[in-house]
């Protein structure tokens, strides 16, 4: 049971990684002059949209958290709206935090906001898919021994990796190498993307290594 679940997780995660790689490659066939660095804003949009669609589809197909309750259509709609509001709020919050960390306040607002959207896609959207608009469940998952399934462990790992990646992405900005990817926010968004991809790959492996130690509390 557990092995099969891990295999499913791995497949889903690899699909995510593959999609991100595709977002960097495919658009250049349709659009002359598209590069990740040159038309970074476009890539940010494409990547966010693709990753979020894929995540929602995966969530619908795999259904990692079986909810036993049958809910009405109205309930589902309100849930969806709540999710949207949460996502938007997380974008705003990320934007504020990025600015507080030293991003320019007025210039390049678009860049900063799209970077915040990308970060939200990698972190908040996953939480929304997995846990729903339920803050208490979020709090529980992001604490020690809080994960209750391998999906939630994977969520922990990918979220932390994305944020760490974005954090490390800020390091090359002051260097005097004059590379195109040192411009704000390219290095950070690339860092976040690589962190996310690393998290996606590490998560199943880590769960596989530690499958003896990982005993999830049943509900």
């Amino acid at each position, binding site marked *: 049971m557990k092995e099969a679940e891990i295999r499913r997780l791995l497949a889903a995660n690899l699909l995510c990684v593959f999609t991100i790689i595709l977002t960097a490659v495919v658009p250049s066939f349709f659009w002359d002059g598209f590069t990740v660095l040159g038309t970074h804003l476009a890539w940010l949009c494409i990547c966010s949209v693709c990753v979020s669609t894929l995540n929602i589809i995966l969530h619908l197909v795999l259904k990692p958290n079986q909810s036993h309750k049958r809910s009405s259509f109205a309930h589902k709609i309100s849930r969806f709206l709540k999710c949207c509001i949460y996502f938007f709020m997380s974008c705003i919050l990320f934007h504020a*935090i990025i600015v507080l960390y*030293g991003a320019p306040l007025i210039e390049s607002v678009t860049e900063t906001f799209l970077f915040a959207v990308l970060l939200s896609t990698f972190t908040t959207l996953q939480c929304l898919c997995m846990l729903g608009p339920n803050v208490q469940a979020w*709090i*529980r998952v*992001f*604490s*020690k021994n809080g994960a209750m399934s391998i999906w939630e462990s994977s969520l922990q790992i990918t979220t932390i990796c994305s944020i760490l990646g974005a*954090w490390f992405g800020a390091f090359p900005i002051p*260097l005097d190498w004059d590379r195109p990817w040192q411009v704000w926010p390219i290095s950070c968004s690339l860092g976040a993307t690589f962190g996310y991809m690393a998290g996606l790959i590490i998560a199943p492996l880590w769960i596989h290594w530690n499958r003896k130690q990982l005993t999830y509390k049943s*509900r």
Partner: protein
Amino acid sequence: LPKCCSSTGGCLPASWPVQPAGRRVVFMGDDTWEGLFPKKFFRSYFFPSFNVKDLHTVDDGILQHLYPTVDSGEWDVLIAHFLGVDHCGHKHGPDHPEMAKKLTQMNEMLRSLVDHLGNDTLLLVAGDHGMTETGDHGGDSEKEVNAALFVYSKTPLFVTVPPEEPEAIPQVNLVPTVALLLGVPIPYSNIGEVMAELFSGDGDAVSAALQQLSVYHINAKQVDRFLHSYSLVAQDLPAEQLQHLQQLFSSAVEEHTQLLAQVQGATLVPPELESRLGSLISRFQLYLREARALCTQSWARFHLLRMVGGCTLIATSCLLCYMASELSASSDSFYRSCLLYPLLWGLMVALLLGLAHAFTQEGLDLLLVSSWAAAASQLGFFWHWWGRHPKQRLQAWLGLAFPMGILLFRCGAMFSDSFVVAEARVAPFLLASLVMLLVGKLHWDGRLTVPEGPKQQFLGFSSYRREIWYLLCLVAMLLICVRLSGFFHQCREEIPQCRPSLFLSPLASLRNTRAKNLFYLLCVVLLAGLVYAVRSWLRHYGNLNSSDPLVLFVRWGFPLVVLCIACYWAVASSADDSLGKLQELVQVAVVAFPWAVYGLASMGLLLLLCNPMTVFAKDTRESPGSIVTPYLGVPTSEVDFLHVIPQIYKRMQESQKSRLERGSCRATVAAYGLGSVYSAALVIALTLLGFLLMLLHSERLSLAFLLLFLEAFVLLHIHSRARGLPFSVPWYAVISWLLAASQFFYSTGHQPIFPAIHWNAAFVGFHLDHSTNLLPAVLVGANTFASHILFAVGCPLLLLWPFVCEMPSSQKKKPKKEPREELQEVEEHMMEMRLRESPEKFSTALLQLGLKYLFVLGTQLLACVCAAMILRRHLMVWKVFAPKFLFESLGFVVSSICLLLGISLVMRVDCAVSTWFNQLQLR
């Protein structure tokens, strides 16, 4: 050739050939020259110059005497040293109307001076330095080291058309040129090269070239003589290159003599002669330039052995601090063996070395002796430590990983010139990251969530405690403070697109009167707000109740200090000519107000040292029979009304209990403000220091200081929310404290480069010259290391604050508790008196805190020193690494001293508290 040198800045005075034999040198201007060349001038007109705010005294004085002197003709050299432009740059910056006025005045002066000159007079106008965008100098940036040189003569100087793009001439070239023009020997130690154009005379090309050749020959001979005798004395010029230079020189001289013989024999015809003359001149030029390059290169030398030794010493000192801080937590009786004996070892070695030197009659190198002594004492420490080191568990190391990782990043950043240049943004980034990490870790460990009840466990939910909002607000406030402090940064020339912060320039440089008034009001209001905040904090903890002189000073002296500062700012920022006849009054006020602040602040600090107790004791023992409850819940009298939170001391109760058993009276003492007596003293000291340091900065930087106080306050609160073990300050708190210190080094408008030093600080309260160098050095140093000083003195607060903050939480719990626990509850109100409960632990914790602080400081210094050592041949070493190293090491010294002062202040308070208790018991 009689000549006239009008220099609009100070020249390099030591290099001027003053008073050559038989020449009449007339000087007018800056009185610094009098000290440098006393009684060397034929005639002199000195004017006081040291006050950089005074734009006109020197210039007007010169203008008064210049034309009559020039016309009288009783001179061979006339030096006029104008200072107004320089001072105007310091006071107003280059883009100010005052500067335009000054430059116009100088232009007028030159124009009329040219009319007064004779045909055989040469006019040299030279600035000895340029200025930065802020109008300062003293550094090594392009804008500072480049200055204009204007040479004018009524007889044509240049045979050929002068080049369109003027060439840059090293300043040292002025010396041989002026010397030869005057017909005196070139000074012995000159390594400059003559400016050949001035020696072309008015003949044809060949005679001009011949004259230039002879000048070069003299110059080269002089340099060769200097190099020869210098290499005999000092061994620091590489022998191979010296030999190469020697060959260059001798071959050029040989050819010179040949050529001269041929010229005299008239065997050479002009075209060939001209080309040979040209090639010979360029050979002399090559020699002179190479000689200068050799000297500049080899006069910057490195002593590798000492560098490695110094690095090792710093590294082992850091290790020692770390070990000792770990050791002091685990064992009690290590002081003697691990701290005292090694100290004695070190002293012994120093003494032995001193004796050895005395016997061998060698010069005593203090540096070597002290480093050997330090090494010996460290060896002693590690020897003793080896026997008793506690076993570290892996868990403990892992817990250190987060804060130490951040420290590692910070130290690693010192090795890259880009990161050193961008450090103003690196430090706040790391600080924000550290605090966010801390909160994340607290959350991860479940210390922020309510322990799960059975119901919640069933649902799989967790909810936060109510405090989480408080903590989140604190973190948000910290992040906002950190971000806002970024608006006060100074620029470095390495980042060309950077604009220096508007807040750095003094209010006097603002042209818009309305903006000036608004900023002034804002600064004064915020300053008053700081005093209000400090007073209400003290009142909240009951430290404002007694009628001791210190408390009275806090009540009345603080507003007075603010008033003085506000007046000083008003006077200093007013326009120069706006006050008209009141000018003299203003001159007095500019000096008097800072002195009033100095006096008041030092009075406050003295009072603090004499009696640091801010405790009001309400003794009810005189009324026998009355039973006074220890906790005065409802205020009954006016006095109680002021004392919002009464503090009870447990030992007091105990002593009273023992008395109760013996005697008949049942009474107790209510002491207000006892629970925060240590912190109160530190807060008062910090506020006073803050006033002093704000006075030394330009007006609008007081906003940065307020941010500093706010951020420190928020940091302390976050720390007291998050701390685990009592009596030990965790590493992250120390590291975040130091990160904040370096963040505010940059946010008070400083950079670790020489052009960014605020020299104006030396003239706060001093209108005229300083008699010694010590006082201005102290003032400028205090200005530069303001944040280091404040954070180092405030460091013991990290230990004390959690005790101060413990009260509200226990009060909150109170209603829930059973009445039977009421007694225990009262005991929990002890706050800082908990520290006195276990004096052993208190002193250990204080020592540990100091050691941890020194460790983190030392690690930063070590990284800096290693960077400067390893990258000493780096392109950027003189621009980036060496100044950073100097600033960091000075900051280390200042921080260490201030840390000791802060800790000794706490110990002084401790003594005072002890005597206070003794007196109470005696009563």
